[in-house]
């Protein structure tokens, strides 16, 4: 479903991705982890064509996502890091979820009954139906994350890219969003790529852990074989010190 072959990308002379190759199959649930600056966000953005690699190639649904950007992005959901709703924009929760249908619908066509039905279904699924008419900018961080998830669900997507969506949330919200993502994975049979730093909160359904370090693939692990030793090597931290922080890490 997603084929990444020898992809490299530099910004201002600094190499962010170097010779990355990954094959992500249908219904894979991949966690991408790694230190800050390892290239995790850049990798996600190359998948949906927001960033064009300098070398190598990316194929999604057997299409080049830069040349077929609009078509490919219609089937890929993306929730960005720090994507919080500005208070100055006068949009209700429903308005924001409807944005998910805008790209699907295309230009010169208004959203119709079918679109609004998808929007209501998505809001119902993530449990924000009661917030429908509330100004989106005034919601809590956890509620705003649910709005973003509903927006992407309303689009009828095949792939969901999540970039550190648990950041700036309290532990209860982190657990709630994780469990929501797990439910969505099971129910919609999506392919999910989940970038995170919060190793203690990796969803149970994860099928692979891909670790990036210095723009390269450090390791592609099956969750059952990923442990504290791998983690200490990935982050260059003493294993004992790391255990104090993330616990005895073993999935």
């Amino acid at each position: 479903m997603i084929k990444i072959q020898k992809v490299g990308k530099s910004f201002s002379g600094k190499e962010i991705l170097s010779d990355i190759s990954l094959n992500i199959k249908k219904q894979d649930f991949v966690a991408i982890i790694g230190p800050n600056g390892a290239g995790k966000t850049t990798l996600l953005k190359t998948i949906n064509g927001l960033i064009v690699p300098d070398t190598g190639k990316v194929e999604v649904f057997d299409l080049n996502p830069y040349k077929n950007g609009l078509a490919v992005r219609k089937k890929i959901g993306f929730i960005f890091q720090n994507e919080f709703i500005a208070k100055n924009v006068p949009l209700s929760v429903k308005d924001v979820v409807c944005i998910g249908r805008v790209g699907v619908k295309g230009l010169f066509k208004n959203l119709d009954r079918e679109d609004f039905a998808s929007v209501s279904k998505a809001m119902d699924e993530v449990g924000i139906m009661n917030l429908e008419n509330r100004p989106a900018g005034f919601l809590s961080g956890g509620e705003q994350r649910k709005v973003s998830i509903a927006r992407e669900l309303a689009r009828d997507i095949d792939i969901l890219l999540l970039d550190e969506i648990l950041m700036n949330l309290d532990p209860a919200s982190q657990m709630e969003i994780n469990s929501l993502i797990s439910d969505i994975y099971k129910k919609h049979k999506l392919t999910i790529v989940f970038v995170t730093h919060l190793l203690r909160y990796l969803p149970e359904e994860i099928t692979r852990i891909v670790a990036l370090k210095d723009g390269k693939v450090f390791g592609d692990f099956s969750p059952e074989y990923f442990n504290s030793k791998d983690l200490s090597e990935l982050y260059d931290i003493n294993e004992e010190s790391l255990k104090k922080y993330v616990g005895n890490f073993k999935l």
Partner: protein
Amino acid sequence: MWEILSYNYFQNALMGSILAGVGLGIVGVWVVLLRIPFVGVAISHAAFAGSVIGLLFGVNPIIMAIVFSLLASILIGPIAEKSGLEANVIIGIIFSLVLGVAFLGLGLISGPKTEAFNLIWGSILTLSRSNIYINAGVTFLVIVFLIVFGKEIKAVFYNREVAMSSGIPEKFIFYSLLFLSGFVICLNLNTIGGILIFGLLINPPSAARILTHNLSKMYFLSILFGITSCLCGLLFSYLFAVPAGATIIIISSLIFIISLVLRGRNGR
């Protein structure tokens, strides 16, 4: 008092006021929600620079003003993207450039410079019928764009990156919003003047935003406040023989203050 309505110049001023209220009311919502309020100042000074260059080289200063301000509004988006800087920074750079060009041109012109300064001060009572037709055409274009691309514009207001990743042609929408804003601002310079137009661009949508969390209502209130400011300004200017542009801006500021008080009372 009513006989004033029979004069052509006053009819033109009246129509110009309504068109300014509608056009600036709509593009004002765009620049406020895109958080690029200084685009008005940059574009009006680009028009000023254009008119100065026109006078210097013997070309129609109004045409040069339109060309310069449209160029400025077209260039903001691509330069911001190419440089990786925010649109607001590029607006500041364009503002300083056109100001430099305008002052350089003023220093080199030996004859009268009144036509160039008219764009800075504005003179609503000298609007011609052709001004009105052109303004009406561009205002119509803005309304059509808003109706046709309303849902895409909403997505761009929310988050440009999300809009792009949702399969929306956000660059086309964003650049079109900048271009149309530049066009409306430039064509209303005769009505309000380059310095004061900033107030009519920002005050009505800001007052509207304070009173509502609904985008459609924000457009409606912004247009209403824009038209009210312009018509009241024109009326007071006629009754008390005071400058119309300045009065329009003071009234739009008063509307903003009243909205602020009303919101305080409603506890929102």
